[in-house]
């Protein structure tokens, strides 16, 4: 069984001088350079005491340096923990403390996130632009660490229902099984030029990075700033003659709406892949009209399994279609099972919860025994992950996504537990009660409304401007509610719980659905 590091070693031996990574700034790293620098970093980390099984936090914006860091950490036998560079510092520090990182790699901006020595004793802390640069410049071999496909490669933190992010633990073999499936379906080659739009703390980045590296292709990193600027992004795709695009539907919608695609020649694209949320058909149709050449695929799968079902979108989406496309058929390395809430298998065509077994299924959440026992079903001697997604089977379309039964929503591809937003809102000193409701929206995918009440002695309610500003400093941007509604007190059920159903009915009645 191979590891993600093996992909780099074999491509570096076969194509040492081909471009591996193109930085947002335009600088490029060849396969041989990426291999050498990451080995030097691994040697440095090992010399400082980072050992197989350790975790290393990475709090960097997207760059070739960051990719070097990821491979260096894995070559030391450790798992990388990528942290959102632009999220509130408290969240990042909480994650680094939660998984007890052995080392961190930061830059001048993210240095403030470094946990205190009493919370997390660190063997090494490296700063890009300073100590990191010196470490990778040395001619130091990688440590002699056995490459173990069953070892953790990375931990990705996702929104947790209790309001605290939880770490999804994935091994090399979990990732390799998915990457190898991509090879069989998308037939990549060293001639490909992959976009890398998703940040590294988002599981879409696994495809961009490792499928490209395995096949000797070039990865064109898109910075956070460029990623938000559709007009520049369209120019970037054309100028770099990208062949493979992978992002959330939200980004493709932005490109179609604001990117002036008619002004750019993007005919080099051969594959457009999207995942992370439902793609409103009217926007998908427009993208396909602007870019009629490539094959389009809808990829589905939670971070816990990466992609586990896929659907090829037929060319020429009819004008009258408004039903979203299905999530399709299971990938070869995954096995699906659809069960009723009581554990009985549904008859084909009936709705039920989707469970996944197979090589790509994660190892569990870091240090969360309660969540772990709830996440898996043991059946036929195998571990089945409960995705929490409700689906139904259709013989022609495969699986059709039908929604959720809990309080998790997807927005701009990010998974959001509404409880995490509520927890952020409660941090405001004047907020007494907070209830957050998500409603489907034909245009935006989902809209999030926060119903709030204030402490009686708190004086006037905060303005909406104040709440927006407060959320920006206490929650990741994609979690900030679209609407704030202040009430004297929130409606309660007979058992004195917040009556979410009545709030939801109110929103539906206002035509917010």
């Amino acid at each position: 069984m191979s590891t993600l590091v093996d992909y780099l070693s074999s491509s570096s031996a076969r194509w040492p001088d081909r471009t591996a990574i193109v930085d947002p700034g335009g600088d490029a790293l060849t396969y041989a350079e990426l291999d050498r620098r990451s080995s030097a970093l691994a040697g440095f980390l090992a010399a400082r005491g980072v050992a197989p099984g350790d975790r290393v936090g990475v709090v960097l914006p997207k760059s070739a340096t960051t990719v070097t860091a990821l491979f260096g950490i894995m070559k030391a036998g450790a798992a990388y923990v990528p942290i959102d560079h632009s999220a509130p510092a408290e969240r990042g520090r909480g994650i680094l403390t939660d998984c007890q990182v052995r080392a961190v790699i930061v830059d001048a901006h993210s240095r403030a996130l470094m946990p205190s020595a009493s919370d997390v004793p660190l063997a090494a802390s490296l700063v890009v632009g300073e100590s990191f640069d010196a470490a990778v410049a040395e001619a130091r071999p990688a440590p002699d660490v056995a490459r173990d496909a069953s070892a953790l490669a990375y931990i990705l933190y996702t929104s947790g229902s209790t309001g605290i992010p939880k770490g999804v633990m994935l091994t090399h073999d979990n990732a390799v099984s998915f990457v190898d499936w991509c090879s069989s379906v998308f037939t990549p080659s060293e001639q490909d030029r992959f976009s890398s739009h998703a940040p590294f703390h988002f599981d879409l980045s696994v495809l961009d990075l490792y499928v490209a590296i395995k096949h000797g292709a070039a990865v064109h990193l898109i910075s956070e700033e460029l990623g938000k600027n559709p007009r520049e992004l369209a120019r970037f795709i054309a100028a770099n003659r990208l062949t493979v695009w992978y992002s959330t539907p939200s980004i493709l919608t932005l490109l179609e709406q604001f990117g002036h695609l008619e002004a750019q020649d993007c005919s080099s694209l051969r594959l457009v892949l999207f995942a992370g949320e439902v793609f409103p058909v009217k926007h998908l149709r427009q993208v396909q009209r602007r870019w009629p050449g490539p094959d389009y695929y809808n990829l589905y799968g939670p971070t816990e399994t990466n992609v586990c079902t896929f659907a090829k979108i037929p060319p020429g989406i009819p004008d009258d279609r408004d039903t979203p496309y299905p999530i399709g058929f299971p990938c070869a390395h995954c096995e699906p099972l659809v069960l009723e809430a009581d554990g009985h298998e549904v008859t084909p065509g009936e709705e039920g919860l989707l469970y996944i077994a197979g090589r790509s299924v994660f190892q569990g959440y870091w240090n969360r025994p309660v969540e772990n026992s709830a996440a898996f079903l043991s059946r036929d001697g195998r571990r089945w992950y409960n995705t929490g997604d409700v689906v139904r089977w259709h013989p022609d379309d495969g699986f059709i996504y039908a929604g959720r039964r809990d309080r998790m929503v997807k927005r701009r591809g990010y998974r959001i537990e509404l409880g995490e937003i509520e927890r952020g809102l409660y941090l405001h000193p004047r907020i007494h009660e907070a209830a957050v409701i998500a409603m489907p929206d034909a245009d935006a995918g989902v809209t999030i409304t926060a119903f709030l009440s204030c402490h009686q002695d708190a004086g006037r309610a905060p303005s909406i401007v104040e709440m927006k500003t407060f959320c920006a400093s206490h929650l990741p941007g994609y979690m900030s509610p679209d609407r704030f509604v202040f009430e004297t007190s929130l409606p309660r059920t007979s058992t004195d719980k917040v009556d979410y159903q009545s709030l939801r009915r109110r929103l539906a009645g206002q035509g917010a659905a």
Partner: protein
Amino acid sequence: MNDMKETIRQFILKTYLPGESPANLRDDTPLRTSGILDSLATLGLVSYVEKEFGIELEAHETGLESFDRIEDIAALVERKRAQ
């Protein structure tokens, strides 16, 4: 100039701050550095300003220094129209 600021204010209130009192969105309220507008909302505002005032904005003109406050946005539109 005042009409222009009012037009921009009404669009922001209606689209991104439903229910907010106009008095809380001043000419000098930071829109992006404060978190009122995220990147997606900023794109929507740029697109609205272009259409409403018949101008075309380049990426460098929609940076924080000229596109973070209603008064700055109105001044930018005036400059563009005078060109």
